[in-house]
């Protein structure tokens, strides 16, 4: 019975998975690591695609994902011209650890801070990691929650489809 009840609830929620994504980047102010404020609606990559990845220093799968992509990033950039913006949702407790961590990992990403979750809320992110793919015109064309080793291949496939 327990199982039945669960599967019924499950069935009801299934349509959730069928929703298509679309939309533009919202207009929210975030901070760069060099102390500046940036409005996210001005983000662009000269007509090339962008990856927007939400992460935190306290999130193990997030760090796995960004460290994995870091090894392929130069190659991805060469092939697609993509820019990855890593949005840290670390709050006042850990936001000061972001810059040393990022450099300690030797990442080449653009990293911004969203300490009170304004951008996270504007893009309706529930939990991290959460990745958005934005095409050259600024449309959000694909998104992915969670990270499993190998997911980066899926992301790269979607990225190449944009070219």
């Amino acid at each position, binding site marked *: 019975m327990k199982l039945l009840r669960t599967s019924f609830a499950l069935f009801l929620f299934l349509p959730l998975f069928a929703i298509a994504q679309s939309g533009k980047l919202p207009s929210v102010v975030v901070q760069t690591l060099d*102390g500046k404020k940036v409005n996210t609606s001005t983000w662009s990559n000269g007509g090339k695609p962008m990856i927007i990845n939400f992460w935190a220093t306290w*999130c193990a799968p997030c760090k796995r994902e960004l460290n994995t992509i870091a090894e392929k990033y130069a190659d991805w950039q060469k092939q697609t011209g993509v820019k990855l913006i890593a949005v840290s949702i670390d709050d006042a*407790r850990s936001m000061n650890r972001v810059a040393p*961590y990022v450099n300690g990992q*030797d990442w080449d990403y653009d990293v911004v801070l969203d300490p009170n979750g304004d951008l996270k809320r504007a893009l309706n992110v529930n939990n991290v990691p959460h990745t958005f793919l934005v095409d050259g015109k600024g449309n959000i064309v694909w998104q992915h929650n969670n990270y499993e080793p190998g997911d980066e291949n899926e992301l790269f496939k979607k990225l190449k489809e944009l070219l």
Partner: protein
Amino acid sequence: MRAACRDFHIFADMLDPWKRILRTATFAFIALGASRSFHLRAQEGGQIHGNFSMDGQYYTEDTLIGALQPPQQWGSNAWGNLNYSTGNFKAGVRFESYEPALLGYPAGVPYTGSGIGYRYASYTKDDLEVTVGNFYEQFGQGLAFRSYEERYLGVDNAMDGLRVKFRPDTGIYLKGFIGRQRLGFDGPNRGGFFNGSGIVRGIDGEVSLTEAWPRCFPKWIEKGHVVTLGGSFVSKYEGDDDPLYEFPENVGLYAARVNYTTAKWNIYTEYAHKINDPNTSNENIYKDGQALMLNATYSVKGLGVSAGAHSYDNMVFRSGRGAGPFDLNINFQPPLAKQHTYNLPATLYPYATQANGEVGYQGEVFYKFKKGTKLGGARGMKLAVNWSGAWSLDSTRIPNDTVRFDGYTANFFSLGARNYYQDLNLELRKKVSDHWELALTYLNFVYDIAQVQGKPGKPMIYADMFVLEGMHNFSDRNSVRFELQHLNTKQDQGNWATAVAEFTFSPHWFLAAMDQYNYGGSVTTEQIHYPIGSIGYIRGGSRFSMSYGRQRAGIFCVGGVCRVVPAANGLSLSITSTF
């Protein structure tokens, strides 16, 4: 006949949880249906987007671990946000449902029933932004004001009122707000969230010197330095009808901050001062409060170093004098302890800022041994070392304090006798081959459980932990990850061992199993296993997972806030979706 009766009973028992699931599902459905049709209609005019999250648990009683079955048997926390935006206009609403809330959730005033948890409308015109209804906001790093949500912890002190943001010129940012704070949630009687009775208002200004007046600072601009100054004033009003005390009805707090950034350095400091604010937390003393935090980081490619310190004295600031520790907080006093990701160090002995005063320090180094070096090997190796600690504030109680009720005097930044915690941890991470990555972590905790977890009389805990983590890729898509954790201590519940195995099949599936074993070691405890299995499915922005097994009572922290989650046994279900 007996069988029939029993069946009937089961059916009657189940009606309630059924209704609850149905209600939750209907609410999700309506929200969804609405969003989908809007989605189509709004193609030209604007966008509808949002998210949905549900965590449910079916509880079974388990006396060995102290897990209870509540009368409703099933608990679930669910919410869905719907946001509409068109041009310069934005509006949104969040439906929430707790039928009933999961055990131990939320941290403060209870959430019951279903209804509206948050709603707002805002518009932006040139450099002006106006928001009415609910909003989240933060000044500086929060010593003066922080309105925020940690939905999974049950912390939400959303403001309800009016906020104006204005940028008069490049590099100058002004903000002002007024309103009340969300306190709890009561669907049946109030149709949703309800606020505390106190009023909070504040203003904040921030100037980036180099952006606002570039001609005055040519050298800084040439070198790429950024200097930002900020200042805030926040005050609260709460009427006083106390027959005994004469409480100040208006209490003010001011704060100032400086941030200096170069390509390699980032130095941040924030100071806040609060005038007399007798409240339950400080035992109704009239002493002023003050807080100072300092942080410096230095980083270049492959190396990052940070150092931080703070001293907090009597800085609890709530819009209700008698509010509990998780309710109606106006400001935020960030702790310096690292947030661990492995299960044992993260949930057994985590640290949260001690509300009325502490002195804390932290230091951290990240280093990457490059490829081809002796220690780096063929693929490089990463090292992280972190230490942090907090002590009581060096304070002296004022004798015969019957006139001013100042309580005590304190020496700012001077360590008191009591060490609340210390945490030293080292991590080495290395890719050993194309298919294997290993990480080895050592942690050493000193932890005053009597103070931090409010368990008077319990001795100081000294614990050593080792964690070995390994990851192996079978192919481009399939991999396994395991963790072996061991915690060694002669205090509290004694030794723990944990094993985790997680199989992932990218991009959709995962399967995980974990066992935690409290075997005591030199401490006599009941030797208990906590096995749990999980399965999950991910597609796009949606994630669905299910677990079955025992969950140890633990402390879950996000940001500076920790919530105690009671032990549970049963089936749990989690769905999140973004659209």
